[in-house]
């Protein structure tokens, strides 16, 4: 976990009014008026200007989530990744979660597209913020209101997986084969309870264990890396682009809060059928 993220965890857990009133949240509020946003913004971005993101980054979620412990989210760049201009970082924030910084995703021009899909937990009705930082250091924000609650604490109990399965990974490809030089979508699936730190509130026999870092390379070059935490659902899933050559190795390295390190590799060859179905 990078120092920024660690600072956030420590700071925000103290600062935010976690037990705040829950009354009158049926109407969709104004993202500019959220009382939860200013302290998060201050801690993460200080006085930096944050521009309207609609031409740079968008965030997609259902407004009313079906399962607060598994809310699919997609952050999609509206610009191409070129060496001259690209999105180098995306901050994904769930304002009302105990640890609001769900993930900080780093991309490179080798990513093909700055896009990531994952699944989030929601402790309470909340704005989700996706903030893209371009290589020139500018920040662009997209926001979305989501009605879902109770998902931070809900999981963990239904997913007691045998210890030998924790850290098992799969790549699942959107298409049956890839074509050299054409961006391809791949889902990295990580078998992990991603236990919320909240799960220990009334049970001190367990130390929460969750994935904190994910790094994916293709042919030795980083295409996506992320600092994440327990706002990500159990069995963390990340779907993103890479640009294949004729042949190359896709590698994922995952670390969790118990300093466990898991590695998964797969050789991708143009035209050869890929797992995913």
């Amino acid at each position, binding site marked *: 976990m990078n120092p920024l993220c660690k600072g956030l965890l420590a700071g925000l857990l103290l600062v935010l009014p976690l037990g705040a009133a*829950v009354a009158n949240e049926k109407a969709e509020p104004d993202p500019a008026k959220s009382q939860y946003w200013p302290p998060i913004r201050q801690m993460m971005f200080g006085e930096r200007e944050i521009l309207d993101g609609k031409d740079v980054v968008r965030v997609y979620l259902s407004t009313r989530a079906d399962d607060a412990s598994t809310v699919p989210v997609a952050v999609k760049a509206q610009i191409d990744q070129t060496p001259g201009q690209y999105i180098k970082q995306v901050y994904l924030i769930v304002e009302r979660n105990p640890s609001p910084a769900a993930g900080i995703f780093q991309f490179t021009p080798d990513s093909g597209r700055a896009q990531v899909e994952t699944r989030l937990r929601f402790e309470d009705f909340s704005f989700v913020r996706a903030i893209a930082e371009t290589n020139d250091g500018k920040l662009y924000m997209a926001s979305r209101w989501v009605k879902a609650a109770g998902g931070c*604490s809900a999981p963990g109990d239904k997913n*007691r997986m045998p210890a030998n399965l924790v850290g098992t990974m799969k790549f699942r490809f959107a298409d049956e084969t890839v074509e050299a030089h054409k961006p391809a979508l791949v889902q990295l699936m990580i078998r992990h309870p991603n236990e919320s730190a909240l799960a220990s509130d009334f049970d001190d026999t367990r130390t929460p264990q969750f994935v904190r870092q994910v790094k994916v390379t293709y042919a030795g070059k980083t295409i996506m890396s992320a600092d994440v935490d327990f706002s990500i659902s159990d069995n963390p899933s990340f779907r993103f682009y890479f640009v294949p050559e004729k042949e190359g190795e896709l590698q994922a390295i995952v670390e969790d809060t118990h300093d466990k390190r898991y590695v998964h590799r797969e050789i991708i060859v143009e035209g050869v059928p890929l797992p995913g179905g």
Partner: protein
Amino acid sequence: MDPSRIAAALLAWSVGVASTFAADVLDPFALSEVAPGNFVHYGSLEERAPGNMGDQANIGFIVGEKCVAVIDTGGSAAVGRALRAAIRRTTDRPVCWIILTHVHPDHFFGTAAFREDRAVVIGHENLPRSMGQRARPYLNALKRDLGDHAAGSEVIPPTQLVRDETVLDLGGRTIRIKAWPVAHTDNDVTVFDERTGTLWLGDLLFVSHTPVVDGKITGFLEVLDTLSRVSVQRFVPGHGKTDAPWPQALEPERDYLALIVRETRAAIKRRKTIEEATDEVGLSERDKWVNFDDFHRRNVTTAYTELEWE
């Protein structure tokens, strides 16, 4: 883990003081004697709202010569008080046990109404942990949905835990509490009254109300398969009521869950994402169930996250 410590911690999450609204909405509090000594109050199939005070689940009690065992206490302290009053009108035997069939709030928020009975609260061995994890969000949601009518409702975990089976003697009447593997939740128990052959299923059986999967969909189907081979004279679903015979009464739920499993597996095989699967799986069941739009997509989400690892 020390249950009394948990109980003390959870008391901090209670929602203020008792209110007196209950009587109006929940009066008369209808009871059906489905088998001699087995009394059921059928909850509403409507969504939780101030107008029904959280009276969603089917709850009730079994009366022995010495003791009463309550099976689920309803979705608010108000419902719990109405149930307690109904018990007092029915028998002078004391309430010795409260059995909670699983962690969902429509089944347990009424437990506070039985405080002065000093009844022992019984549940699945996984129930305290699950209740502890969900206490705060459940109370927040209750308050959001019921407002002042949530007053007095508390999260009170069991102190007697069922690992496999627990047998209780109510006085001339034996009941068996059985703990199941992960199915509807990871903490489902059923209650069987031996004298009348009556099985209280909790939410292992939904009738009319869309079934909910908050555990493991393949496990749910396995448990239904086991249940269908049990000899039962009468049964009480967790939601809804039916005249269908046993075990045919299990079939609509089993068909619904099996369809989700089949179609979700097919969607995964066709490389569909979780969002695409929730948009297309199981829609042919829509007209068969109440509250389909509130629960169905969630079931598909749960199924997908389970089945994508097969």
